């Protein structure tokens, strides 16, 4: 096992990784940018190292600075968190070249699963039903048009790199496709430094369901159930829950088992999430694999009692899984609400500034993962996630009741957050029925959604 781990991330996930290190008896060191000196993760760590200025390109995205920080602070491994360099095989390779361990899949595994189109083809060969998509990346507009024709409209344009909805567009006609390609390319280039795009068949009224898997170096793998992430705004997840209300128990079991069987056979290693789209008939189609810890991992932890970040670290250190599928028991229902510094009333515009008062919720079945404290100043440089409220109950209804209590208790003053959205969601009939689909919020419009909730 590692003795000292450098955490190359910020915000709530840096705090979360510090906790996992403590649990395993590892000394946590936090790498931070100049503006993140006063953060919670820095305060909780054994040591902190400033790696660069606020600009992420020169701090959290600077492979050389991060590896240098790990070396000067005597660490033997690097935890990349999510986003930033978490799925960068070149960074993982460089980490290893300096005698350090990258906490995540080994570089050659990351490389094998780096291409989304390639991963789809690979896992299809291992028995997963996959969504129809373009063969490889789009070479030019003409190639895009012919591929879209073959797949069938509507299609979703997606960037090969990254996530979070940037560079993504749903198009229904060749004309729309042609118009959107330029925009998507420039968005993807600006966000990820890579403008390669591919196409994916779009399913109307789809649900987003993903399966959490854990696979060790020796080919032992288990799934830890699925999560439903259908409450989205512009392809960005806002709420996640498990089990998914979209599928029945038989489909659930078959999907999760097929997922872990396929990735283990394809040589995957460490934590991973397989994302699926589920159509109106309840059929699931694989879309992509995320080779990192995900924002919504606590939902699965609440159901399983497994510390997924600790598992990730253990497996990277070469430890065997040590348990089988029969040992994984999933109990009750959990829902996670992402608390973002966003002004819902103004098109979810990102906010920054001081948090004057912060009071987290509590009580049975309530967890909040956050880096906030009263007096903390949210910098404008990074994403707007402030934390996550996760509730658990023996069933969905009791989890929703706890969510109402928890979101009512949560106080964040001085800064506008998306709390009004979550409170509105908890009185929305479609959500209460468990029938939310990924395109619903965009179709209705956030303003109309909030207004309807206010009347209800």
């Amino acid at each position, binding site marked *: 096992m590692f003795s000292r781990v450098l955490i190359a991330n910020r915000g709530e996930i840096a705090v979360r990784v510090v906790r996992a290190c403590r649990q395993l008896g590892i000394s946590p060191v936090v790498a931070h940018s*100049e*503006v993140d000196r006063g953060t919670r993760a820095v305060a909780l760590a054994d040591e902190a*190292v*400033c*790696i*660069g*200025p*606020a*600009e*992420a*390109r*020169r*701090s959290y995205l600077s492979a*050389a*600075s991060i*590896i*240098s*920080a790990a*070396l*000067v*602070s005597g660490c033997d491994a690097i935890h990349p968190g999510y986003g930033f360099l978490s799925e960068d095989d070149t960074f993982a390779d460089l980490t290893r070249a*300096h005698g350090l361990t990258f906490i995540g899949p080994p570089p050659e595994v990351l490389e094998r699963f780096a291409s989304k189109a390639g991963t789809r083809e690979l896992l299809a060969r291992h028995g997963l039903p996959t969504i129809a998509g373009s063969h490889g990346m789009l070479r030019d507009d003409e190639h895009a048009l012919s591929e879209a024709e073959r797949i069938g409209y509507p299609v979703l344009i997606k960037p090969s790199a990254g996530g979070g909805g940037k560079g993504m567009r749903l198009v229904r006609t060749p004309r729309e496709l042609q118009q959107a390609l330029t925009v998507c390319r420039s968005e993807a280039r600006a966000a990820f430094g890579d403008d390669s795009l591919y196409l994916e068949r779009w399913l109307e009224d789809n649900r987003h369901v993903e399966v959490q898997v854990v696979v060790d170096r020796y080919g032992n793998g288990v799934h830890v159930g699925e999560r439903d992430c259908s409450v989205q705004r512009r392809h960005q997840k806002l709420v996640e829950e498990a089990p998914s209300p979209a599928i029945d128990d038989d489909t659930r079991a078959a999907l999760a088992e097929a997922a872990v069987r396929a990735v283990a056979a394809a040589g995957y290693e460490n934590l991973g999430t397989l994302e699926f789209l589920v159509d109106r008939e309840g059929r699931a189609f694989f879309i992509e694999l995320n080779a990192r810890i995900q924002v919504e991992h606590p939902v699965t932890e609440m159901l399983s009692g497994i510390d997924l970040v600790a598992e990730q670290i253990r497996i990277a250190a070469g430890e065997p899984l040590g348990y089988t599928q029969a040992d994984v028991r999933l109990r009750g229902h959990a829902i996670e609400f992402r608390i973002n510094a966003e002004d819902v009333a103004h098109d979810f515009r*990102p*906010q*920054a*500034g001081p948090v004057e008062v912060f009071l987290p919720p509590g009580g049975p079945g309530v967890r909040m993962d956050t880096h906030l404290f009263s007096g903390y*100043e949210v*910098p*404008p*440089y990074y994403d707007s996630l402030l934390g996550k409220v996760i509730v658990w109950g023996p069933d969905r209804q009791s989890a929703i009741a706890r969510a109402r209590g928890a979101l009512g208790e949560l106080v964040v003053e001085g800064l506008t957050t998306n709390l009004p959205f979550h409170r509105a969601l908890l009185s929305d009939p479609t959500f209460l029925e468990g029938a939310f689909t990924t395109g619903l919020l965009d179709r209705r419009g956030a303003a109309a959604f909030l207004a309807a909730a206010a009347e209800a």
Partner: protein
Amino acid sequence: VSSHEPRGDGGEPSGYGEDTDARDRAEISRLADEVLPALAARLGASGLGELEVRGAGWRVRLRRQPSPAEGSTGTTPARAASHPPGASRHGGEHAHEDEGLAHSPAVGYFGPRADLAVGLPVRAGDGLGHVEVLGLRQEVLARVDGIVGHVFVEPGQAVEYGQELIRVDSLGRHDASGSDEDGSAGGDGR
């Protein structure tokens, strides 16, 4: 995303009469709020190293990356432009600091130049040493003319980004070349 120095090469007011003061301040704040973010975005997109724009009585120059020794004098990413006022003040913490302080340009191991010692006369832009990052050296430069007043770190010591490494005491007048006699006055040059 580009970076620039918020106060370096900023507005250059046309007149210095008392009555123009308020007007100048308004103009400077307009430049800071409107012109700088637009220029920063332009610089970021262009791939150019430096961009200079002149208007009536003012000139703004943006450089993509501060020279290593100035690394911690504050950065204002282009994104700040899309955020509410008050939020864009981050990163400027060092702007009022002692100009003679040389900060570490990176996280790594410090190596002084061979003759670095208190009392050494230096000119702005002179190399004072380096920080080694994965085998590559990043120079630490003097930012003012003066004499070395204090060295805060030992040779081979691990340093973090922005850490104070060396203080150069300014001679007041920009004429370090005259102080050939090894400046044993130490830090009392001001």
